[in-house]
């Protein structure tokens, strides 16, 4: 029986733990705080098929299918909620994107429905006047990621996986060193600790992309679908500077999550007031009733971004026995299950459902901050 140490008990690490224990490996998971407490807890938990390139689309679609299978019998532990995504078009330029996006989804048999303005308001009457239409993607959903992470872990634990609390300071060949002096060894090591991977492996091409979110009190009647602006990808994927994009999620309990923002190379927890204001102004612009909605809390989280927006899934290019599953940026919940499957396929030398090439750890040349 082979043994493996997984560094990082976020949703990705927990998913990898389950894949490998199910395959009969002896798994030790190392977590510095508590399970699902890093980027897993900070994000929105949107299970979304994203179409920024074929590789991303395939990985997110496969992820969504695995989520549907996981939650089919037991949706409750994940607070699974099939609210769908409604991409909102504000002008003719964005309306053109609706058709393009629909064509791509249809090519992959992903259900979607083009909404004209009247249909848009029938679906979401709280949207402001003057919008052009939208694209409804009904199979997108949301989960509550910290609970999902623990759920995945509990399944792994049933198969004999072990949890160790501690902070890994260095990774050597076949062993890791913890900050309290402990050394743990295994046949293989998997790094799945998100943006913190560069503390251990500074050669990885991963940059911090910090986000800020706001959660509100319960307003169960305000919106029904996760609302995202059609220029989201354009706004979200600028390669430098700070940016905001409208992204509003109805939690199953009636709370609303308001996003989103991006800041490169910041990992601190201080709220950026100016960026928060920009983000909220934009949200109010789309849904005017939000102005009077009561906010409970804001927080920051750090996405681990790779230069091409695709995660690194596979063996470290220069170190045998060291495996990576990092760089999921803002899609780590969607791609947790699919990336864990693809990583396990490689470690177990199994056939993969997807062509693995686009996700293999690549260029170690760190992109220079601009």
């Amino acid at each position, binding site marked *: 029986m082979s043994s493996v140490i997984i560094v990082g008990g976020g949703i990705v690490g927990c998913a990898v733990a389950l894949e490998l224990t199910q395959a009969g490996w002896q798994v030790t998971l190392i977590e510095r705080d508590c399970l699902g407490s890093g980027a897993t807890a900070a994000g929105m938990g949107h299970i979304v098929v994203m179409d920024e390139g074929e590789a991303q689309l395939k990985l997110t679609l496969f992820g969504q299918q695995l989520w549907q299978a996981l939650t089919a019998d037991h949706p409750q532990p994940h607070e699974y909620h099939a609210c769908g995504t409604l991409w909102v078009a504000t002008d003719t330029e964005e309306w053109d994107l609706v058709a393009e996006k629909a064509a791509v989804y249809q090519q992959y048999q992903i259900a979607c429905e083009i909404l004209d303005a009247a249909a848009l308001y029938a679906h979401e009457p709280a949207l402001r006047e003057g919008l052009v239409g939208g694209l409804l993607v009904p199979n997108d959903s949301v989960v509550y990621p910290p609970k999902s992470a623990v759920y995945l872990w509990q399944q792994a634990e049933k198969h004999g996986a072990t949890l160790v609390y501690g902070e890994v300071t260095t990774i050597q060949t076949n062993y890791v060193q913890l900050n309290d002096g402990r050394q743990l060894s295994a046949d293989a090591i998997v790094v799945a600790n998100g943006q913190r991977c560069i503390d251990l492996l500074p050669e990885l091409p991963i940059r911090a992309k910090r986000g800020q979110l706001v959660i509100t009190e319960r307003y169960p009647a305000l919106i029904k679908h996760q609302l995202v602006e059609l220029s989201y990808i354009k706004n979200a994927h600028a390669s430098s500077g700070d940016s905001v994009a409208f992204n509003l999620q109805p939690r199953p309990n009636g709370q609303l999550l308001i996003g989103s923002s991006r800041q490169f190379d910041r990992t601190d927890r201080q709220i950026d007031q100016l960026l928060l204001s920009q983000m909220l102004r934009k949200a109010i612009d789309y849904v005017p009733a939000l102005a009077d909605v009561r*906010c409970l809390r804001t927080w920051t989280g750090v996405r681990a971004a790779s230069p091409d927006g695709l995660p690194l899934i596979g063996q470290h290019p220069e170190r045998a026995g060291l495996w990576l599953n990092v760089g999921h940026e803002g899609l780590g919940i969607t791609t947790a299950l699919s990336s864990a499957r693809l990583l396990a396929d490689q470690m177990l030398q199994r056939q993969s459902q997807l062509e693995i090439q686009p996700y293999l750890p690549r260029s170690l040349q760190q992109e220079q901050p601009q």
Partner: protein
Amino acid sequence: MSLNVVIVGAGPAGLAAAWSASQSNANITLIDQAAQAGGQIWRGGQGYAPKRYRHLFGQQTTLHYRKQTHVLGASEQQLYLATPQGPQQLRYDRLILANGARELFLPFPGWTLPKVVGVGGLQALVKGSLPIAGKRVVIAGSGPLLIAVASQLKQRGAIIKAVVEQVPIAQLLRFGRSLVGNPTKMLQAAQFAQALANTPFYVNTWITAAEGEGEVQQVQLNNGQRIECDYLACSWGLIANTELAQQLGCRLEQNFVVVDRSQHTSRDQVYAVGELTGIGGEDKAVIEGQIAGFVATGNYQAASQLAQQQAQARQFSQQLAASFALRPELRQLAQANTIVCRCEDVTLAQLQSQPSWRSAKLQTRCGMGICQGRVCGGATQYLFGWSQDSVRFPIHSVSVADLVMESV
């Protein structure tokens, strides 16, 4: 340009700080969430303060009083505010934190029933014109507030069915003896004793359950006694409102802000006074407030003249903490199905399997509701020894529009 002194909290400590700071030519701003100055203890205004302190209210005419204003957060040089006119930022050169304390509530079966309220909570509601004459009230928990509120409510015609204090009699008598040499407090104690003559006063006793259909109708004590009532007021002491101090990075020890003899915190130009630095009531609050107001405006001589009174007030605060320490039996009051987090209805059983406050928050949403852990945080610290993690912006829940700043 004159110095910008900003004071958060218009209770005794904040008013006193404003009074002494206004002896200089500083530009003073006093911020409070209420419509009227006075804080919790002098709620209702000047008429509720002892005569010796009424002059502190007079200062409101010479400073900027920002009423109904919530401090949402702070950075090194400015505060983020939600005001009746919308969000604002306020720059400060000196910041005096005087934002007081809240009550500690411990969960027990039935504590979520309507008309089970805080002791200070009932006092506030009565000042807000809740009719109490002829109502049967049980006051339970711990601390001098029980007696003070019982005597006030009785004067307003309430039938105080019982005052229930968890502290053993010997400990209480020791505390009484420690007041000798403190004439103001002796007099106060004597007044309370007189006001509460013929009122059942149980020591070494605590509440084990509240019962009733739709609202509290009777309470059960650990001595087996059952008492019928219309209101149960309970609290187990006070917790300092340290959220703003924490956000500023001030050092805390045992849930209080650490200050030196000038009331200076570990952060430059930031002072803390009153209950924030240790529960001690109005006298400590006024002395500390005055010192901070003087020091912040450079009047060190005036501040140094208060040093002896400050030492005495701090000593009283320590006696108070030692005398009303909570007994371990109170950890057993909550049952498996007793709600601990009232915002999200999280039960004791759900929390018992959690390894930490952070984990409890993420897995059960304990502390994630509108109170942001202000109620359950104190309880879980006592029950499980969990310490709170970071304080999140905004400190007070406000509308989305109140978070949108024009520029920063």
